[in-house]
């Protein structure tokens, strides 16, 4: 066991971890953050995507002990802590019917958080590339792209402008 001190969804966390754990293991099994999905577990499907210090990574191929001192964000950290209201990005996924079975959704939302957070506007093609580290076997990606586009537009007031 090693002591891992980090920030998870804005709160300081201190817990014992097994050095053999992936960050996905730790978040799911020790902290109960089950939005972090284990899909392929080899960094191909993107279902386990979380932000580490603001950067989207596959938490299944990230050792938990590497998270020492870092700040981790999962979908559980997106809701308003007081009212429980969904974030604008989550709402965009609901509005655009971008969720079918839902397995890939939390991972894609976390990539969307990074995309929206960059403050930039993107073309459809650029957005396609930015979410290309996620596999979705239900939607065919169209509504997901609509949702990410909507989230970017909502956040930065690009609505109605030519991209």
């Amino acid at each position: 066991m090693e002591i891992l001190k980090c920030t998870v969804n804005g709160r300081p966390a201190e817990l014992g971890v097994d050095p053999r754990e992936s960050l996905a293991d730790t978040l799911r099994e020790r902290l109960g953050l089950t939005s972090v999905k284990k899909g392929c577990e080899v960094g191909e499907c993107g279902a386990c995507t979380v932000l580490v210090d603001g950067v989207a990574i596959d938490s299944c191929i990230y050792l938990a002990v590497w998270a020492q001192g870092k700040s981790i964000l999962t979908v559980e950290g997106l809701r308003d802590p007081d009212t429980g209201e969904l974030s604008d990005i989550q709402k965009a996924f609901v509005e655009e019917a971008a969720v079918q079975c839902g397995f890939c959704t939390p991972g894609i939302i976390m990539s969307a958080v990074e995309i929206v957070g960059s403050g930039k506007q993107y073309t459809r093609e650029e957005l396609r590339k930015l979410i290309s580290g996620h596999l979705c076997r239900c939607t065919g990606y169209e509504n997901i792209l609509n949702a990410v586009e909507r989230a970017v537009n909502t956040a930065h007031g690009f609505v109605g402008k030519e991209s």
Partner: protein
Amino acid sequence: MYDITSVYQAKSVDDAIAALTADPQAVVIAGGTDVLIKIREGKLAGCRLVSIHGLTQELAGVTLAENGDVEIGPLTTFRGCTESPVIQKTVPVLGEAADTAGGPQLRAAGTLGGNLCNGITSADTASTQLAFGAILRVRGPQGVREVPISEWYQGVGKVALAHDELLVKIVIPQSHYRGWSGHYIKYAMRNAMDIATLGVSCLVKLTADKRGVEDLRLAFGVAGPVPMRCLETEQAMVGLPVEEAAEKIGPSALGEVQPRDSWRASRAFRLQLVEELSKRAFVEAVRKGGGAL
């Protein structure tokens, strides 16, 4: 849970070298995008890891040396390489090549050093680094030595790096990139999250009037067991008008490559890719260099 025995998180490069010296079986892990997958596949079962993941201060980042050489820390991620202003200004083709590996999350984790140290032929940044004639600075218990990348690859997955040595810097000398333009093409079955069926990196130095080839580099991934350059083709293109070189480069490269049949693609298909993509990469490199084709 990974099937590993222990993870030692090195506190410095020297500390990592000491840990490797003390444990002849230890495996170095950096970004983890190769090693952890191998462990998941059951290879390296029960291994002991020496992690250099945290040594970003010593080993990550791209800088321009006073003499104009580009110095890349091996822990620089693919994404860090693509986004580096130094890379964009000096060797943009390397940033473009790095941007073709895996997908965004993988590019935020996988490293340029790992891409060289794993010795894999399909490594997306390897052919471009080979084409630029990168100098690989390696540190071990006896000190620092420099290995030209042309002497780096020794066989499938085998590179000129002893067990107790670490790659600590990738240097692209100014004389190797100044006046050159380049283009990398990755051919794969998908646009993302795929391994190259074939990768080609072509660098060209145009004559003053931009109509002829003053010098050329042509390097491949997956055209042989390790990343390789086509030295004869490079020589043969020197002095040709760009139009003529565009016609000759593909057929000439065919004589030097040794792709194999694999479950990803046949040798015949790879040969076709070598011929066609050499031309396309050359044409694009010429365009980027200000030539017309």
